């Protein structure tokens, strides 16, 4: 646990860059992973990266700090809903196609 009275002196840009990296890694997961659940997880990773940048921005100017947190809160809620539905879909897919490989799931095409 971080004690409360330590002053902050980490440049915001570091947080932002970190979040950028995480985001790119999420994209990478999306592009390169084959297991659909993992792809889904990389989406979550992207969401998290964005959340981090939200909080960082909010921290940069404390007038919006709380708004930023509320926003992140909403993002989390939506992510939860998304996970519920998405995983249900994945289960359905697995039931029907006996596979979790995104490349096997290609019926929705021309």
């Amino acid at each position: 646990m971080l004690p409360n009275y330590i002053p902050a002196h980490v440049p915001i840009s570091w947080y932002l860059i970190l979040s950028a990296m995480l985001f790119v890694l999420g994209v990478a997961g999306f592009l390169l992973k084959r297991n659909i659940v993992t792809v889904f997880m990389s989406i979550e990773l992207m969401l998290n990266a964005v959340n981090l940048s939200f909080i960082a921005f909010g921290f940069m100017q404390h007038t919006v700090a709380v708004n930023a947190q509320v926003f992140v809160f909403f993002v989390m809620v939506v992510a939860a809903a998304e996970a519920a539905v998405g995983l249900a879909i994945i289960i359905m897919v697995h039931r029907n196609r006996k596979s979790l490989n995104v490349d096997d799931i290609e019926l929705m095409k021309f």
Partner: protein
Amino acid sequence: MERTDLHLWVLPLLPLLGAAVNGFFGKGRSRGVIGGIACTTVGLAFVYAVYLFFTASYAEHAHIEFIAPWIAAGAFHADFALYLDPLSMLMTLVVTGVGFLIHVYATAYMAEEDGFYRFFSYLNLFMFFMLTLVLAGNYLLLFVGWEGVGLCSYLLIGFYYLKKSAGDAGKKAFIVNRIGDFGFVLGMFLIISTAGSLDYDKVFMAFRGSSVENGMGPITIICLLLLAGACGKSAQLPLYVWLPDAMEGPTPVSALIHAATMVTAGVYMVARSSPLFVKAPDAMTAVAIVGCATSLFAATIGLVQTDIKKVLAYSTVSQLGYMFLACGVGAFSAGIFHVMTHAFFKALLFLGAGSVITAMHHDQEMTNMGGLRKKIPITFATMTIACLAIAGFPGLAGFFSKDEILWQTYSHGHAWMWALGTLTAAMTAFYMFRLLFLTFFGEPRSDHAHHAHESPRSMTVPLIVLAVMSVIGGFVGVPHVWGGHNEIEKFLEPSVGAPAMHVAGEASDAPAESDPTAERLFSLYAVLAGFSGIGFAYYAYVAKPDTGRRLSEKFHGAYQVLLKKYYVDELYDVLFVHPINWVSRAFLWHVVDSGVIDGTANGLADGAQAVGGVAKRIQSGLIRSYAAWIVIGAVSVLLYMTMVWAK
């Protein structure tokens, strides 16, 4: 001016309501219900019109009722506005009144027909459009009604759409009217460009100041174009050809649309535009010539027709010619007066004819009739009255109006037109009584005629009412010389002005109408002409029944020409129909349509297909490649942003 307390909108709305109800829910309903709805709506409209006639104040300046904005394009404005002045009031009364009677009549006449609800919804729709036409506050709305009645007449002429002739007749009416409408539309454009508006009051205001122009000025052109439109709608030369064929429609339709109301729309429009016409004497002359020529022309054809409805059709055309003649010589009020009286007796004639036809089991050939006067006395009586009226028997409606027209014609210095008009009057009398005699006198010439029966009351009552109207209808226009006050002229004066003021300049040398002896004399001529016609008809068809045959053999050529209606239809076929057909088939269809248009369309389609064939590969169904595309997009956007921020 914006007083909406008259609620004019009720008038057109009521029939529209009936049309909607009958059209959407009428199918399978009992005929009583349908007929009830149709008649009730129109009847209510009539009642309200009468109420307005007695209560509303529109005499000194027209009452304009703004309903809703319609078109607002830059400086140009056209609203849904209704316009009530003596002219439109009179027309409304005629339309609703006669219309109501004919509705009632039709409930019985059409009782055996299929598509009963269809018929009545069309009929109500026609009433709606006709009232819109009459009450419109600007030319555009008038044009809406104009086209609407055209549509309804098309639908109703082709009501027996299983009969090819009916369908063709409908199409013919529609197309011929298009020609006229083309002129009308051009006229409206010209009005916009000159007056900047289409609202009556604005237009008239704009032209009031302008001086009378001789030669081809803008006003003259406008008037001529409007005349073209009127010719189309009112079946004047050279566009009259559709009206005789329109007799394919059910008889009530012929009575309502092709005798009483719609065909008079042209006259109404000309009278409505009188402030323009009076500024363009050349156009007036044109109107007069067209009218005079048409009346004579149609009358001559009417002499020899044997189909009862055809005879009536041609007489209608010639009567319309009279009206145009009246307008042309500047006696607009006289024209409208004749519109009214004509509405009565011509409707009566048609309905009577319809009654005869039902009695004859839908046989329209007069050669098969005869001796019906015992069989169907009421019809006989009423039709006799009508014939007398149209023949100008003194004291009946036709007498006053026709007399007025002829006198005005002469008094405005168109002597030879007067002569032709009088001749026409004689012919009119002749062929009308020829019809009467052939139909009702002599011996039955077919077993249908033997077993004819009088029509039901709902048919005879309208006949009687109309007969009464044909008798007394004229008294609203009794000229001073017969001790009358010519109320109708005074009544219409705010709308169309007094005849005396018209035809500025050239009427000066003509004998002024303050010449009672002359006027009496001329009406005497007219009456004599009428009687001579009647007498000759009696001689030819009652006294010596084979006179007609002998004449037709003696003047065989002329007879054939008349019987074939001067070969006008054939002429038009050769001149217009066949060339147009050929051009359409050879060039427009095979080259333009199938070549250019279809080629373009198919080409586009093929192109789209080809592009799609390539582009569809993007939709591989593989999420990851979609993601890759998304990333490519993001990368490019960010690249652009970095570029922008670099500077």
